[in-house]
């Protein structure tokens, strides 16, 4: 027998109360763990999403640059366009390694079975440049060349969802022209999985947007020159420049307020839980005054009593921590969908990212919570005068 097994056996005496306290701790730790997992997952996914563009700078039409940039990242359509000449100008700026024009078009497609219309995104791209921006792209079938007509590439997610395969022909655009799927992009884990990719010229022709482009993605030769290249690009009329760092910063700021709200919820949950634990322990200490007196009489020191009370507290909080962490992992999809609704911008992938360190932190935090909550009841019980405590035991 040791202090921990003694504490565990003591807690069995008040099972209902102990379990309620454990559940209180579990809820608090579960929320804490989810938020931390979400925080690390959000940054990771956002960074992945921004990096998946493979670019350092986006040139967008003048207007709301950050909104436009984040819309473009998600395949949204903006009602303003740049021209081919803007693209030519950007390409010639010193320090630009690669400039790739893109045209985005969105159309609604009705599901024949459910009758629900969902938005579909078409990216008009120059394949040669895009593959330089995204060297990790691989394909089932083949890539198209920039001058091909009537061909397209689709993302793996979209292909799986709509049961598309290489060689399939789909009607596209107002004239329902036939386009053949020549390749299905292997899964990238980002938004590219959901898009259609057309040769830029074909996209411009089919959707009557000749000479128009939505954005120009720019990769610079030397990342330390991003600011200088941005300045040069801004000299071109019509163009507004957004760097990826600015996009990340803006989105993180927006998400920051939502995170603050969640942190407040957690802080409140933890405080309520802490008071619950202290209350349970104080009740237990008060009920067991005579027992502590007996223990002192049979040789326990004040420190022994304090250690036993602390062991009981840590047992409660550690059990709550384990339950809370398991609950957070099991219920992560529910938490994710709840939080996604609260955030102003959500990257496409899973927002919750767990790591052994995070699990370790949650468990260490629950032990710390137990130690903090247990201090007062432990000190109170350790200071009981044995004689006062067992007075009822004598006449």
């Amino acid at each position, binding site marked *: *027998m040791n202090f921990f097994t003694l504490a565990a056996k*003591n807690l069995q005496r008040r099972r209902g109360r102990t379990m309620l306290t454990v559940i209180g701790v579990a809820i608090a730790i579960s929320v804490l763990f989810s938020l931390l997992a979400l925080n690390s997952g959000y940054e990771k996914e956002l960074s992945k999403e921004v990096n998946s563009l493979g670019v350092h700078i986006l040139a967008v039409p003048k207007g709301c640059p950050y909104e436009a940039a984040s819309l473009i990242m998600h395949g949204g359509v903006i009602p303003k366009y740049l021209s081919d000449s803007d693209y030519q100008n950007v390409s010639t700026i010193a320090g630009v390694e690669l400039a790739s024009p893109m045209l985005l078009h969105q159309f609604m497609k009705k599901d024949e079975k459910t009758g629900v219309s969902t938005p579909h995104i078409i990216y008009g791209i120059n394949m040669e440049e895009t593959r330089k921006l995204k060297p990790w792209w691989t394909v089932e079938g083949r890539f198209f060349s920039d001058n091909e007509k009537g061909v397209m590439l689709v993302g793996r997610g979209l292909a799986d969802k709509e049961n598309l395969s290489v060689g399939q022909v789909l009607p596209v655009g107002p004239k329902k022209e036939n386009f053949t799927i020549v390749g299905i992009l292997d899964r990238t884990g980002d938004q590219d999985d959901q898009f259609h990719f057309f040769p830029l010229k074909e996209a411009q022709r089919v959707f009557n947007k000749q000479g128009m482009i939505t954005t120009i993605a720019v990769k610079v030769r030397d990342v330390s020159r991003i600011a200088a290249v941005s300045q040069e690009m801004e000299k071109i009329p019509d163009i507004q420049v957004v760097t990826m760092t600015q996009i990340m910063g803006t989105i993180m700021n927006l998400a920051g307020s939502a995170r603050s709200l969640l942190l407040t919820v957690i802080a409140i949950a933890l405080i309520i839980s802490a008071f619950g634990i202290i209350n349970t322990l104080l009740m237990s200490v008060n009920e067991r005054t005579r*027992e502590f007196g*007996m223990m002192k*009489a*049979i*040789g326990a020191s004040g420190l022994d009593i304090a250690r036993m009370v602390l062991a009981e507290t840590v047992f409660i909080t550690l059990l709550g921590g384990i339950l809370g962490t398991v609950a957070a992992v099991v219920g992560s999809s529910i938490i994710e969908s709840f939080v996604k609704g609260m955030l102003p911008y959500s990257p496409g992938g899973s927002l919750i990212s767990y790591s052994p360190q995070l699990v370790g932190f949650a468990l260490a935090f629950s032990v710390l919570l137990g130690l903090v909550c247990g201090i007062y009841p432990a000190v109170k019980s350790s200071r009981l005068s044995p004689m006062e405590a067992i007075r009822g*035991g*004598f006449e």
Partner: protein
Amino acid sequence: MSGIIEAKGLCKVYLRGREEIQALRNVDFSVEAGEFISIIGPSGSGKTALLNMFGCLDTPSSGSLRLNGIEIAGLKERDLVKLRRENIGFVFQQFYLMPTLTARENIELPLLFSKKSGSKKRIDEVLQMVGLADRGDHLPGQLSGGEMQRVAIGRAIINDPKIILADEPTGNLDSVTSEMIFGLFSELNKRGLTLVVVTHNLDLARRAEKMYSLRDGRIVSCEERACAEVV
């Protein structure tokens, strides 16, 4: 020979609100090692105060109390705990067993506090000594009153104390069981343990070697018995 418990001019004053309660008044008391002492007296006579001080649960207001040669007046809490652990075993009227621990674990409890390794053999020995060899794995709720008190006695002796202090050990037991408990005390006394028992049961108290009578914080009489009677 100096006693294992030596009290000289022992006084204890408690404060109840603004009122001073003189629990012990100038008590002189001596217990030799291996003696079996009983203390009787009406409620409020000071038996509790005396037993608390013998058990190092309280310190005197004035006077001297030496336990196994060590003066307890002025000792720090830490030293009192050590003295208690090494010399005293307590038996209470209400047993105070931990309800979620088995008889064996209850007996083992003092070893946890004294940081001694509780060998299974030693616990078995004690269970045997208190007549509970086959009841070790039972919880207190599954034991009779007499059995619970025997577990409490086992708990008191597991650390090999020199003195057993018992407060009304038969107060919650019927006469037959009380006889058995006193029989067990006699056994322990034969093995060399010093026993100080506070009781209201005059018949049982008279079976001790010395019977002290307390009234209003003073010892008013001491009856000595022949050893043969005790055994």
